[in-house]
């Protein structure tokens, strides 16, 4: 009798235990990692091919011609590895936010997962020259200055790497946090800004020159013109700083959203865009607003480009605008059928190339806004 009673109780408990266990598993399944990184590396022209992040963590060299585009090679899939490099080291590569740098037959890449690589593309396929795994993630694009590749990291380091060997020197930035913006280099100084709301100037050989605190974090790439450093910040302001006067503020402009995209300087006019979908034409000397264009409340992350007398602006949801740069009047509007536009465009003679978040390569005619898909990614 006792055993029967016990068995009944055990039977009654079992469904509840199963339901609870299933609930726990379901909760675990739903609660995956926070959004996975996709990357927004801009396409780069290198030795007759265009490098595109066609899939997360994979760069494809696309050969464009009169006919359909064809893939020349893929990285890391087709890469020849030097002795001592484990192929598994390349399996960990996540997305690319950093735009690759091409110089003299070598492409320098920095992945979100922290790999910095030099790839020789002068042969038939890519050949990995060196790889260095850094401890922090990489979002900001590196810059090449002379023989040194400067790599800003999520950990607030600005690391100088020898372009030839990958040998790493001491960080040029100290006490900094989280770099997402590409630094600007001029002569003997390098300027970098971070999410910690500071702009720093350092000597290219080391040694801090000045540090300036802003009111907002800096995520967009810096633009240096002579002695003026243009810095767009997430406090909805565009700053013009005098790099020779320890970053003294020349002017600041209050916009309607985050300044995340790299601004474009054309003569005395600075074109800056915000994440609220506004395009501003500012007087680069005074910061005065010349005109403002806003027809759609949508983020602009890609840098605006000026081609054939038309200012082309791409919004995140795939809407493109052609704007008269002198008046701010819309010339044309085009909407992509699919894909988001977050990466900076590549200007070629044949047109403007945008890469979507799906890895498609879209050619845009700046005069008419006509779009052509020249390569389909993933």
């Amino acid at each position, binding site marked *: 009798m006792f055993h029967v009673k016990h068995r009944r109780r055990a039977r009654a408990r079992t469904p509840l235990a199963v339901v609870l266990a299933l*609930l*726990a598993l379901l909760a675990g399944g739903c609660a995956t990692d926070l959004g996975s990184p996709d990357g927004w590396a801009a396409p780069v022209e290198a030795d007759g091919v265009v490098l595109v992040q066609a899939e997360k963590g994979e760069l494809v060299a696309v050969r464009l011609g009169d006919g359909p585009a064809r893939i020349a090679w893929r990285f890391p899939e087709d890469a020849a590895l030097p002795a001592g490099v484990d192929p598994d080291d390349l399996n960990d590569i996540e997305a690319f936010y950093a735009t690759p740098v091409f110089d003299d037959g070598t492409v320098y890449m920095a992945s979100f997962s922290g790999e910095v690589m030099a790839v020789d593309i002068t042969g038939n396929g890519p050949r990995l020259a060196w790889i260095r795994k850094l401890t922090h993630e990489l979002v900001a694009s590196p810059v090449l200055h002379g023989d040194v590749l400067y790599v800003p990291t999520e950990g607030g380091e600005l690391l100088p790497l020898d372009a030839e060997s990958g040998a790493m020197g001491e960080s040029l930035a100290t006490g900094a946090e989280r770099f997402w913006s590409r630094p600007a280099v001029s002569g003997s100084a390098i300027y970098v800004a971070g999410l910690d709301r500071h702009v720093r100037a350092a000597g290219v050989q080391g040694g801090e020159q000045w540090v300036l605190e802003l009111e907002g974090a800096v995520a967009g790439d810096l633009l240096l013109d002579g002695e003026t450093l243009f810095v767009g910040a*997430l406090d909805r302001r565009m700053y013009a700083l005098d790099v020779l006067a320890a970053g003294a503020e020349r002017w600041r402009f209050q916009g309607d959203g985050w300044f995340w995209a790299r601004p474009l300087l054309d003569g005395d006019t600075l074109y800056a865009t915000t994440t609220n979908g506004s395009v501003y034409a500012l007087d680069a000397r005074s910061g005065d607003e010349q005109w403002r264009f806003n027809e759609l409340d949508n983020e602009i992350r890609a840098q605006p480009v000026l081609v054939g007398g038309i200012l082309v602006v791409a919004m995140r949801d795939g809407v493109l605008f052609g704007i008269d740069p002198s008046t701010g009047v819309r010339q044309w509007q085009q909407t992509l059928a699919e894909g988001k536009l977050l990466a900076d465009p590549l200007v070629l003679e044949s047109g403007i190339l945008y890469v979507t978040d799906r890895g498609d390569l879209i050619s845009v005619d700046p005069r008419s806004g006509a779009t052509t898909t020249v390569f389909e990614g993933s």
Partner: protein
Amino acid sequence: MLPIGAVWQTFLENPLINLMVLLTVLSFGSYGVAILVFTVLTRVITFPLTLRTLRAARGLQELQPDMEAIQKRYKDPKRRSEEQMKLYRRKTLTCEGAGVASVVLGRPVECDWKAQDTNKDEIIKEYERHLERVHSVRLEDAPGRAVNRARKSIRGGVNPLGCLGPQLIQFPIFIGLYIVIRTTLSQHPEDVLKLNDRLYDFQIVQAALPFDTSFLGMNLSANGNFILVIVIFASMWLTQRISSARSLSRPGSQQAQMNQMMQWMLPAMFGWFALVVPAGLGLYWAASTLIGLVLQWVFVGPGDFTWGSLIPNLVRERVGLPPLAPAGAAAGRGAAPAPRDNNDDETPEAATAGANGDTAQTGESNDGRRSQRANSRRRRRSGARQTRGQPRQRRRRGDSRR
């Protein structure tokens, strides 16, 4: 009409996201402190609901012996269901009535009476008869406030869905919080960019991003923080332990076994959950559970839980301490099994009285906050009273019933 997703975002997620951002700014940029402040605010706002839930759960627990008696008594499911509904609707004047008796008699009176009626006036009359019979005191002779107090202490029955309602109301809030913490914690550039859509057009909010996600050595956006898992497991286990300590289910009964299983399963489930979500969410859960534990302790009491009861019997034997009885055992002793009787026409009052057994102990049972030790003290006192020539209440009540 707006699609449901947009309504959810506009009226729940976005306000919470902006509140979270604002709290971070006010917490000197510390997202961890903001989560803690957020948790406290949430618990304060939902406190009335929490209290209702705790009270409803307690009410249901108090009815457990009566419910079991009804289940045993009535074979016909329809009749059983009717009797159960009557039980839920029954207005009660239980231990709080003892306070009234104390005022009337001018000395402490143990909880020795339980109303069986659903009509307020009838309960008062019944109570008056009880005082006269058992304590030889007339309620009308007592100060007027005693009558008022007796009336006030009559509660309007138990709502079996009383636990469910507040939980359902809190559910969207918790889901919203989950999404908010996930959204604001994500540190990938695309996600930060997307946040721009969700922020209100205030400079203080707009300029706040992105956050510093480190807090007390933890990366709040990373998964699998074991310290938080341990804190969540321990605090939930303790919460369950205290809840089951108040439970009046008989040791070995299905309810008691269920309680025991929940004591381990729920903490394990939430511990696992904390392991697979970002530490920021784990921090929220941990803080929320700890606050819930404190609230339960302060407003409902620890039941028969004592810190000493955490020492397992194995250790107790070695150090010479008496072994522990199972949780809820003290209360459960009062809930003697009802005599089996197939007469479906028996009144529910009689059925529940049979289930309650010893009247004095039923009173104790109904007050789940009394500890096991207190029960034995009372039994000793009751015995002493008997030796002083006072007949035991059990016999008296039995007599009066007859």
